[in-house]
C-alpha cells in the first residue's frame, strides 16, 4: 500500500514537471511577445541618425549606437522640453484636483443619505453613456469664450478633465462602502462632525484607493491626444507630448522622425512606467475592487 502511493506520487511529480516545462515555455514565449515592442522602441531610439537612417529599416539592433535622437530632442530645434513640461503640469494638476473631487463625491454618496441621491447617481450613469467626443465642439467654444484655447490650452485641458471627474466615483465609493458604518456612528456619538470624520477617519482608511485614483488620473493625461490636439489647434507651444509625437508620426514625414519618435516615447514612458511599477500594488487593488463591484 505504502509503495503504491509512493509510485503514484512519483508519476504525478513527473507529470507535473512535464506540465510545468510547457507552462514555462509558454510564459517565456508570452514574455517575448510582450517585451518585443518595448525592446524594439528602445533599440531604435539609439540608432544613429547621422550614419544610419531615421525611418523604417529591416533590422532591430542598430549598427551603431548613438544618442543622436536624444540630442535632437534637447537641442531646442523643437519644443520638446516645453511639451514635456506641459504634460507634466497637466498630469500633476489633474491628479491632485481630480482626486479631491472624486473623494468629495464618493464620501457624499457613500456616507450621506440625502434627497435626490438616487436620482443623481442614475442621472450620472446615463450621462456616462454619451460618447465623450460628442461634446467636443461645444466644449471648445465654451473654453474659447473664456480664453482657454490655443495659448491657454493647458489650464483649459486641466479644467475640462477635472470638471467632469465627479462621474468617476464608482471605484472609490465602492471602497468606502466597505469601511464599516459602525465606525462613523461611534465617532458621531463622540460629537465628531461629518467633515471631521472624512478628514480624520475616512481619508487614512481609504489611502489605497486614494493612491489608485491619483495614479490613474496622473497617467491619463499622458495619452490625451484627441481633446488636447483640438483645443491647442495650431499652437505648437501648447501641445502635450501625445499631440506632438503623434504629429511626428502621422502628419510630418515620419521616415525622418521615426527614431526621434522612439526616443521621445522612451523619455515619456520611463517616468510613467516607473511610477506605475512602484504603485502597482495599489493599482491592482483598485482594478480588482472596481471590477467586482462594477
Amino acid at each position, binding site marked *: 500500500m505504502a509503495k503504491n502511493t509512493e509510485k503514484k506520487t512519483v508519476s504525478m511529480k513527473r507529470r507535473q514537471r512535464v506540465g*510545468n516545462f510547457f*507552462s514555462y515555455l*509558454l*510564459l517565456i514565449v*508570452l514574455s517575448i511577445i*510582450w*517585451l518585443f*515592442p*518595448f525592446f*524594439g522602441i528602445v533599440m531604435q531610439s539609439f540608432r544613429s541618425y547621422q550614419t544610419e537612417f531615421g525611418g*523604417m*529599416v*529591416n*533590422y*532591430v539592433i542598430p549598427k551603431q549606437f548613438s544618442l543622436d535622437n536624444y540630442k535632437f530632442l534637447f537641442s531646442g530645434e523643437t519644443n520638446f522640453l516645453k511639451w514635456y513640461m506641459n504634460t507634466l503640469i497637466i498630469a500633476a494638476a489633474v491628479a491632485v484636483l481630480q482626486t479631491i*473631487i472624486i473623494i*468629495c*463625491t464618493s464620501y*457624499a454618496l457613500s456616507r450621506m443619505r440625502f434627497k435626490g441621491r*438616487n*436620482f*443623481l447617481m442614475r*442621472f*450620472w450613469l446615463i*450621462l456616462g453613456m*454619451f*460618447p*465623450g*467626443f*460628442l*461634446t467636443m*465642439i461645444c*466644449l471648445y*467654444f*465654451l473654453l474659447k469664450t473664456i480664453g482657454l484655447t490655443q495659448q491657454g490650452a493647458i489650464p483649459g485641458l486641466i479644467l475640462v478633465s*477635472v*470638471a*467632469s*471627474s*465627479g*462621474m468617476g466615483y464608482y471605484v472609490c465609493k465602492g471602497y468606502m462602502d466597505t469601511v464599516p458604518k459602525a465606525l462613523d456612528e461611534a465617532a458621531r456619538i463622540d460629537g465628531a*462632525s*461629518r*467633515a*471631521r470624520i472624512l478628514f480624520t477617519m475616512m481619508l487614512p482608511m481609504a489611502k489605497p484607493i486614494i493612491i489608485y485614483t491619483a495614479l490613474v488620473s496622473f*497617467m491619463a493625461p499622458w*495619452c490625451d*491626444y484627441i481633446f488636447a490636439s483640438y483645443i491647442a489647434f495650431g499652437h505648437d507651444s501648447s501641445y502635450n507630448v501625445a499631440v506632438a509625437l*503623434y504629429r511626428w*508620426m*502621422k502628419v510630418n514625414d515620419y521616415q525622418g522622425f521615426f527614431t526621434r519618435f522612439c526616443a521621445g516615447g522612451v523619455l515619456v514612458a520611463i517616468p510613467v512606467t516607473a511610477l*506605475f*511599477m512602484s504603485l*502597482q500594488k495599489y*493599482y*491592482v487593488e483598485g*482594478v*480588482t475592487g472596481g*471590477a*467586482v463591484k462594477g
Partner: protein
Amino acid sequence: MASGESGKKKKGTIKNIISVIGNEFRDIGTTLVRGDWKTKLSYLILGFGQIMRGKFLKGIAFLAVEAAFIVYMIKVGAAYLAKFGTLGTVETVKQGRKTVYGDNSFLILLFGLLTIVFIAFFILVWRMNIKDNAKDEAVLKAGKKLPTNGEDFKSLFDHNFDKTLLALPVLGIFVFTVLPILFMICVAFTNYDKNHQSPTNLFTWVGFENFKNLLSLGGSGFGTTFFSVLLWTLVWALFATFTTYFLGMAVAMLINKKGIRLKKLWRTILVLTIAVPQFVSLLYVSKLFANDGLINALLLRWGWIDKAIPFWTNPGLARVTIVVINIWIGIPYMMLIATGLLMNIPADLYESARIDGANGWQMFSHITLPYMLFVTGPYLLTQFTGNLNNFNVIYLLSGGGPQSMELAGNAGRTDLLITWLYKLTVNDTNYRMAAVIGIMVFIVTAIISLVVYNILPSVKDEEGFQ
C-alpha cells in the same frame, strides 16, 4: 433633457409623476393662503421671510439667486431666448471691406439652452424658498427656536456636508457635461455643418432630417455606411471583450499554477503594456505592422514572404490585426483582476471535485468559470460598453483605415462609431451628422447596458454564489 426624463421614468409611472406635481402645486397654494405676511411676501422677494426671522445667511443666499437671475435675464437671457425658435435671422453681410456680423446661431443655441436651464433652476430655488418659509413658520408656531446663522453655517460641515461636497462636482458636470450634451442633442436637429458655420452663416432647426439621412439607404444617404460601421462596432466589441476575458483568465491561471516560480516577474512583464502610455506603445506597434514596418521588413529579408503583408491596407486583415493587438493590450488587465479572484475560490471545492474524479477541464467549466462569470458580470458589461467606445486602440493603430469609396462621410473599414464621429467633427466639420451618430452611440450603449444588466445573475441574486 431627454436623459433627465428617462432617469425619472425609471422611478415610477407617469401617473406617479403627475400626482407628485399635483401635490407640489397644492402645497404651494395652501402655503400662500395660510402663511403669514412674511411668507406671502417671500413669494415675490425670495429670502424675505428668512431675513425677517433672523436667518440672514439663508435669506441673503436666496435673495442673491433672485437678483442674479433677474440681472441675467434682462442683460443676456431674454434676448437669446427670443431668438431660440429661429436660431437667428439677421445674416452676416459684407459691406465693402467691412464684415457686419449678424446673429450668431451657435451662441443663440448655447445661451438659449442655458437660459432655459436657469429658469428651471430658479423655479426650483423659488420652491425651496417657499418650503423653507413654511417650515420656519411651523417651527416658530410650535414654540421652538430656529437655528441660528452660525448653526446654519456649521451644518454645511455636518448634516448638510453633502451639499458642500457635491456643489463643485455637480456644477462642473453641469457646465462641462450636461450643457454640452443638451447642446449637441439640439444640434442633431439643426443643419449645422460646413456650409452653415457660425458666425458667418446662420443655421436653423430642420427637424428629423438628419436622422432620416442617417437611415436612408439610397445613394448619398449615410444609411449603408452607418449600418456597416455599427455592425463592425458590435463585432469588434464582442471580440475585444471576450478574447481578452478568456485569454486573460487563462494567463492568470497559468501563472497561479502550483509550482510555477517567479510569479511576480511574469506578472510584471505583462503589466508593462498598462504602464507604458498607450500612445507610445500603440503608435509604435502600428508602425511595426505597417507595409514598410519592421515585421514585414524582417519577413522579407528572411525570404519568408515575397510581398509585404497588407496588415493595415486590407480591410479584413486590418480588422483581425486590430483584434489581435488588442489582446496584447487587454490581457494584462484581465490577468490582474482574475489573479485575485481565482485565489478567492475555496480550495476544498477543487479538492472534492478531484476526489470525485473530475479532470482539469471539468473543474474549470464547473467551478472556475461559473464563479468568474458570476463575480465579473458587471466588469464584462463595462468592458463591452468601453470597447464600443474604444477610441484609442482604433485611432492609434489604424486611424479607422483603410478608407473606402463605398462608405460615406470619410469612414474607413475599421472605423467604430466613435472614431467616425471624431472624423466627422474634426475633418468634415459635419456637426449635424456627428451629433446624430453620438445620439445613436448613446442609444446602443443604453440598450445593451439595460438588457445585460437585467440578466446579470449577480444583480438578480446578490447572495447567489455561496
